[in-house]
């Protein structure tokens, strides 16, 4: 089963990379851009009986390794 974990800086946590990307987008003429948050996506192929079980397993991975709960939030999505 394929699951996707998306990790993003928490609201309020400084994201220098996102800020720099927003600045570059402005310079390219995308004046309508207000804010960019840069994060990471992990696509994980995992053996699981049900989509729900895959999601639980991925959330556990996200909590312990893929994200740092001090500075990041994550979302899990089952792809297939």
């Amino acid at each position, binding site marked *: 089963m394929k699951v996707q974990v998306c990790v993003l*800086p928490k609201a309020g*946590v*400084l994201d*220098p*990379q996102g800020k*720099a990307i927003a600045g570059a987008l402005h310079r390219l003429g995308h004046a309508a851009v207000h804010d960019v948050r840069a994060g990471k996506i992990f696509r994980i192929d995992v053996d699981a009986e049900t989509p729900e079980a895959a999601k639980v397993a991925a959330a556990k991975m996200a909590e312990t*390794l*893929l994200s*740092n709960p*001090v*500075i990041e939030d994550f979302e899990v999505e089952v792809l297939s």
Partner: protein
Amino acid sequence: MKPRVVVVVFPGSNCDRDAAHAAELVMGAETRLLWHGETSLGDPDLVVLPGGFSYGDYLRCGAMARFSPVMQSVRAFAERGGAVLGICNGFQVLCEAGLLPGALVQNGGLRFVCGDVHLRVESERTPFTRRIPAGTRLRMPIAHGDGNWVADPETLARLEASGQIVFRYVDESGSRTPEANPNGSLDDVAGICNEAGNVLGLMPHPERAVEALLGSEDGAEVFRSFAASRA
């Protein structure tokens, strides 16, 4: 008796020998480099997590090293009150492991920064600064891309109130200015300790400032203070 110092070597550590050298030179320590796959620390007086790029800084700086076999022993050692010093990448590892609060994110200016900075000793709560009067200014090098310490406002207030903020970036005259902060670190924090004071993490490199030949001997104060505190 000579202090016994264990320096942990992760794949990608590159300041391990410098740390051992500094401990030997300044404290006359008996040092041992310990590969991260080992689990037995022996009976050291101090464990150093050195600078470098453990696991190539993959995922987040220090995130992978946290799961190295040796870290379970380091955690147990710290929880028993053992002295642990995390320098640069070692500081990142300690935050990732939850042995120190907050986290280290990318420098505000996005660039890797290296050069000498000035630090002000803010607290004598740890053995590493117990013999350095608060307010003392020390000059030592930094070299990092992710040294921007962040924490929520409650954590910062708690650390401030309990004297756990150990070093702050200042200018040459000892004043806090935006220009003196090299990485955007919250409240100019350069180093913090845990509640008990036995675990210290800092981004600057005291081990690279222990000989006049290296440009500064101020880093030696940190090791000297530790040696004097245990005597």
